[in-house]
């Protein structure tokens, strides 16, 4: 075995630097990293790519948990996609998902995260630690717990109504009167830490001399922020928005715990609809189609960020 490898070596001779550096006889480059990577690659393909491919395949079938379709699953072509496009529940869920995404991800987490990061700049270590601890604390809490915390806060006998009662306002049943607002607030509370941290990191890389130069030229704090800091942060904003979007569209537990998608489907986002179709109704084919649609929604948003915040425009 060793001899065949040695025999192969002369063919690779035209790249002298390489064989000179390597003590061992050369082997084809691919094999060199493929062999040690093989176990990892194998696991990745089996447990990661496998399910993804299965999902794509299942969305073109009538796969089901029970009933005749479970016994012999058939390829149904584009039937699931046709059904998706005419399903009023899907259209409603898409709208709810976009509202949730824009409200809690794009506007809520980004604006609040950036504001917090800006406010924490140049503050004392004690303030920074305190704010970070509170914000990151919310982020570390498991989603289920966060959901219950918000239910306890917003329900009719919850703490918010107790506060409102103190100032003489009538108690509201927030989870029923404003379910979307409730889940958006909860998700902003839960997720802001991530964008705050990335923006803090981004801000620390903005050169201070640029800001000082602008100030010397007579620019106000807002103008410095708008014309100097934000353009330099563009790349960070794009990445953060992208990651936040991907995280937000797949939020399930928080909404499931708080409202269960109700009342009457008013807070049913695509992941909840997918759960309902695939697991409550056992319709795996249609459920996986919704999963793909979710991918499309996230993809569209990502495309928008990449175009709007194209880093090349920044010099």
């Amino acid at each position, binding site marked *: 075995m060793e001899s065949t490898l040695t025999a192969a070596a002369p063919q690779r001779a035209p790249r002298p630097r390489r064989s000179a550096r390597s003590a061992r006889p050369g082997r084809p480059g691919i094999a060199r990293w493929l062999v040690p990577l093989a176990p990892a690659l194998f696991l990745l393909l089996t447990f990661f790519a496998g399910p993804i491919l299965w999902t794509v395949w299942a969305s073109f079938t009538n796969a089901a948990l029970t*009933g005749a379709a479970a016994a012999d699953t058939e390829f149904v072509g584009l039937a699931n996609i046709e059904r998706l496009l005419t399903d009023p529940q899907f259209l409603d869920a898409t709208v709810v998902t976009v509202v949730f995404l824009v409200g809690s991800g794009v506007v809520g987490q980004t604006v609040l995260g950036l504001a917090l990061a800006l406010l924490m700049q140049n503050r004392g270590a004690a303030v920074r630690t305190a704010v970070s601890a509170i914000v990151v604390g919310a982020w570390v809490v498991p989603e289920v717990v966060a959901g219950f915390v918000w239910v306890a806060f917003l329900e009719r006998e919850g703490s918010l109504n107790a506060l409102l009662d103190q100032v003489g306002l009538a108690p509201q049943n927030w989870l029923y009167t404003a379910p979307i607002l409730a889940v958006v607030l909860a998700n902003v509370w839960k997720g802001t830490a991530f964008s705050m941290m990335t923006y803090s990191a981004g801000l620390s890389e903005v050169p201070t001399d640029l800001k000082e130069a602008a100030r010397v030229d007579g620019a106000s704090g807002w103008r410095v922020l708008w014309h100097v800091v934000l353009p330099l942060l563009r790349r960070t904003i794009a990445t953060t928005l992208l990651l936040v979007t991907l995280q937000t569209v797949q939020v399930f537990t928080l909404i499931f715990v708080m409202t269960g998608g109700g009342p009457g489907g008013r807070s049913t986002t695509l992941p909840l609809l997918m759960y309902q179709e695939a697991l409550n109704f056992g319709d795996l084919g249609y459920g996986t189609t919704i999963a793909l649609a979710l991918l499309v929604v996230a993809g569209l948003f990502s495309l928008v960020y990449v175009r709007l915040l194209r880093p090349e425009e920044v010099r």
Partner: protein
Amino acid sequence: MTRVPVGRRKRRAARAAAAAAALILAAAGCGGGAQDDPNTVTIAYQDFGTFQAADDLFTKVKEEFEGQNPDVTVELRPIEAPAEDYQTQVNLMNQSAAEAPDIIYEDSFTINQDVDAGYLAPLDEYWEAWEDAGQYNEQADAAVTALDGKRYAAMLGTDTRGLWYNTELFDQAGVDTPWEPRTWDEVLETARTIRSELGEEVTPLNVYSGTPAGEQSSMQGFQMLLSGTDGALFDEEARKWVTGSAGFEDALAFVETVYSEDLALAPRDALNANVATLNNEERIPAGEIAISLDGSWVTQSWIESANKPWPEWQDVMEFAPMPTQNGQDPGATSMSGGWTLALGSQSANPDLAWEVMSHALNEENATKFAIEGGQIPVREDVASSPEFLEASPMAEQAAALVDVTHFRPAYSEYPRISLAVQEAMEAVMLGEATPAEAAETYAQEVEGIAGADNVTSGG
């Protein structure tokens, strides 16, 4: 000692790692060898909320059967989930040959779907040879026979639904007992009297409604109303789903009345997935609910082995039949379901599984399950046994309703249609739609679910 070149040593390590990974995967792939063991019988059942009876029964069966047959293992797979999720989990287990249970505790209305999916094995041969088979009544036989004419399960017990009422609250409100309402209006009148006499502290009439309570809303709530009108969900003769019936709208109007007149629980309490547990374990024993439209099994929340025993219930609670809308024949109505034991088609040793199953179904165990599970027995010997009759004071009244009872349409579209019903109820109870509007939305949804050809309107 020969020196192994570095390169080769590395390659060996890589190969060993790959082999190890492959082995682990192979092991994970065939999974739980126990299921394939012909001397192991797995039983999957629901163990959730106030429902302890199945867990008690199968624990007893395991001990007894393993005692009598030392080489056999009875493996219990309790699933802690509400009914809908329980079904999902069992279906997932059934999708893998290694995980599929030998004996499945199964709601009778899912039998047809699971037979179509190939998850169940017919029981006819075993059944014909079983000496106890003659004890089972015809109704119980029909419920476990699939559309192909074969028997796929054995019923553990059935149930009926009606109006549970609190005689102490009735006395306080000055309503005569025993209470025998003959029409919906009489039910509502009593509820209004209780509201005006007893004030905010007492909820006059609990009717399950909305999506969080799931099938409870659909079956104990809506279908208990609909079956008392001239409407129906499904026309068995035409084999079509029915929309746009007057009865459907009237049933929704009843829901609207109880919620808009503040006769029922506040929506925030009613729209809680655990509403039934809270009602039966807390609100009813605390005297906070005067009338509750619920199942014959609710007594299992109050018996000695319950989470919070309430022995006084026998002096306080009474059970009245739910009247039809205007008192039309037969005067009362009810809905029935029932849980069964089914034989998994992937069982490695169906003969042994049947032995365990028939042990669980024997007279002693059936009596125990009927008492603890608040069931109406389907075995004649259990139904007439003094042990059962003494332990279940409501048994006779509940069993009498079997004559006027209805079953859910057990077809694969049913779960979706049931959800559409729950959504219609929820829209009405929250005041988002009038009964007519909700019925219209329902009609459109049913057409989408079952296809326009399978829907008939009017009636």
